[in-house]
């Protein structure tokens, strides 16, 4: 008997019981159900939730693969024994370090989703599929697995389930998870020791290695050791999936082409970041701050380079565009995205405690998204009322 029939029998067996949603989810995740509707006309759209989620995951796969190769590449480069980027040696480190993160992220997250579906008696939603893929991509490589498990449990329960599950959450669950990790275990989430595999356990010993990120170097007014093309292609230390700007741009184009991600948000985030960068460049050019200022390093970065250092592009393409937590109106999306870019760069430059501000900026704007929508809609109503008035009088 094929797997499909087995799952179908299981589903039938548990129909009407408490466990029904769990078996139902397993069945519909892998196969199309046999049942068809009988009466009435139903419009079938191809872009259901499952299709949307799978498109995003497809766009993320290149970032994940690149991150796995880069894990080993950075590790050996930091050890002073460089290996080829596309070699078995670099991939091996990626497999033993990155895959467990993916497995834990999906395992814990889906277990909680199933648990809540069974308790509350609703169907399991596909919402966690993308979150579960995003989470391993936005954490440092040496993060202990139990910390990730705790954070995923926290993020899924507090960030999503208490609001009513997929589609009802205010905050992006993946970023809630990252924020939890950042505030709970700051030593594992920032600094110069966490971005390259092996750096933490070697700290303080004779063969210590360092994985200073570009943002860290700038913040301390130090020389940056990586070339612009390395930053663009992604051969730099950083969170697992966000280093390669080229692949993120390709993923973004794919999302825009399939109409899954909003080009308005992506574009306006980038514009916001560029405007803030230009303002800082202007401040430096005008000579308002001296070279000894602690902000000088980051402020004097040419404005367009802000896009290829740090994770602003990853945030703009995969995080800000989350259809649930972003603004819904078109005008609102421009404001929402612009402020994300603007605030990200502001946090990046002004607050040395938060070397990267993208996730904080997106979470903040998640909170304001409904307010932005409200005012956009009210303004539109007001405009239409004005148009209507002369005719009434």
């Amino acid at each position, binding site marked *: 008997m094929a797997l499909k029939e087995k799952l179908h029998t299981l589903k039938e067996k548990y129909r009407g019981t408490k466990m029904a949603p769990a078996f139902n989810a397993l069945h519909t995740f892998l196969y199309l159900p046999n049942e068809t509707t009988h009466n009435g006309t139903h419009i079938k759209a191809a872009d259901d939730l499952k299709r949307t989620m799978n498109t995003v995951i497809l766009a993320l796969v290149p970032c994940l693969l690149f991150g796995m190769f880069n894990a080993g590449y950075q590790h050996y480069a930091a050890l002073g024994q460089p290996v080829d980027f596309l070699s078995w040696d670099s991939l091996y480190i990626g497999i033993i370090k990155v895959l467990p993160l993916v497995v834990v992220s999906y395992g814990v997250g889906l277990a909680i989703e199933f648990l809540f579906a069974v308790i509350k008696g609703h169907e399991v939603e596909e919402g966690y599929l993308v979150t579960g893929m995003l989470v391993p991509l936005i954490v440092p490589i040496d993060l*202990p697995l139990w910390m990730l498990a705790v954070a995923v449990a926290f993020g899924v329960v*507090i960030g999503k389930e208490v609001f009513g599950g997929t589609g009802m959450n205010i905050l992006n669950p993946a970023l809630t998870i990252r924020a939890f990790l950042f*505030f*709970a*275990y700051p030593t594992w989430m920032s600094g110069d020791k966490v971005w390259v595999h092996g750096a933490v356990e070697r700290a303080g010993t004779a063969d210590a290695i360092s994985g200073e990120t570009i943002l860290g170097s700038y913040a301390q007014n130090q020389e940056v050791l990586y070339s612009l093309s390395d930053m663009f292609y992604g051969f730099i230390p950083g969170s697992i999936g966000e280093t390669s700007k080229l692949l993120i741009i390709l993923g973004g184009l794919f999302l825009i082409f399939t109409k899954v991600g909003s080009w308005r948000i992506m574009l306006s985030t980038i514009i916001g970041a560029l405007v803030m960068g230009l303002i800082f460049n202007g401040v430096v050019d005008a000579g308002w701050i001296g070279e000894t200022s602690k902000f000088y390093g980051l402020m004097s970065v040419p404005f367009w380079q802000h896009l290829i250092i740090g994770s602003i592009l990853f945030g703009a393409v995969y995080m800000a565009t989350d259809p649930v937590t972003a603004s819904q109106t078109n005008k609102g999306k421009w404001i929402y995205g612009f402020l994300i870019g603007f605030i990200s760069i502001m946090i990046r430059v002004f607050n040395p405690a938060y070397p990267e501000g993208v996730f904080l900026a997106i979470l903040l704007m998640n909170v304001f998204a409904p307010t932005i929508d409200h005012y956009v809609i009210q303004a539109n109503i007001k405009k239409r009322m004005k148009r209507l008035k002369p005719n009434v009088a």
Partner: protein
Amino acid sequence: MGLLSKKDSKLILDPLADNNPITIQVLGICSALAITAELKASIVMAISVLFVMGVGNVVISMLRNVIPSKIRIIVQLVVVATLVIIVDLVLKAYAYELSKTLSVFVGLIITNCIIMGRFEAFALGNGLWRSFLDGIGNALGYGVILIIVGFFRELLGSGTLLGIPVLGDPIEKTGVYALGYENNGFMLLSPMALIVVGLIIWVQRSRNKALIED
């Protein structure tokens, strides 16, 4: 209950659970967020509020027939302020370190909405004994939540209870720290207190469906 009539014991027991000032009436949240990072501070705060509310309710109840209603808020404030200053001075005299941890929040007991709320809602209209019980009951309800929150925040945030390490030494890597466990720094930040209070509210309301508002 031999000591208390059924009606009287309700005054004490109700605020402990189904009419808790923090989790049901959502009053006094500010201090619950600010000082619960350590269990010791939570306990001292709970005792201070217990004293202020017990005595304050009695004083207001005694004066209830002579206070002109137009200036009753001022009178209430004078009573709370007097009691809070006593607490503050006692803490400064006998537990100086602790009073530094609690800092401004001892003074801010004055603005704790639970206290003014009970003065207004109960002590102004009830006799001495019942006002006293009501004050004690509400202060206990407040204190219980404070201590629960303080317990979890100190245990998970610093790995200690009342300043005594219970999970091992995080620097020497003994106890659970040897297994790779680490303290959760988020627990020491105020937002986490809000989330812990929220979780208590969640548990309480899912056990007693009658408490769900809509």
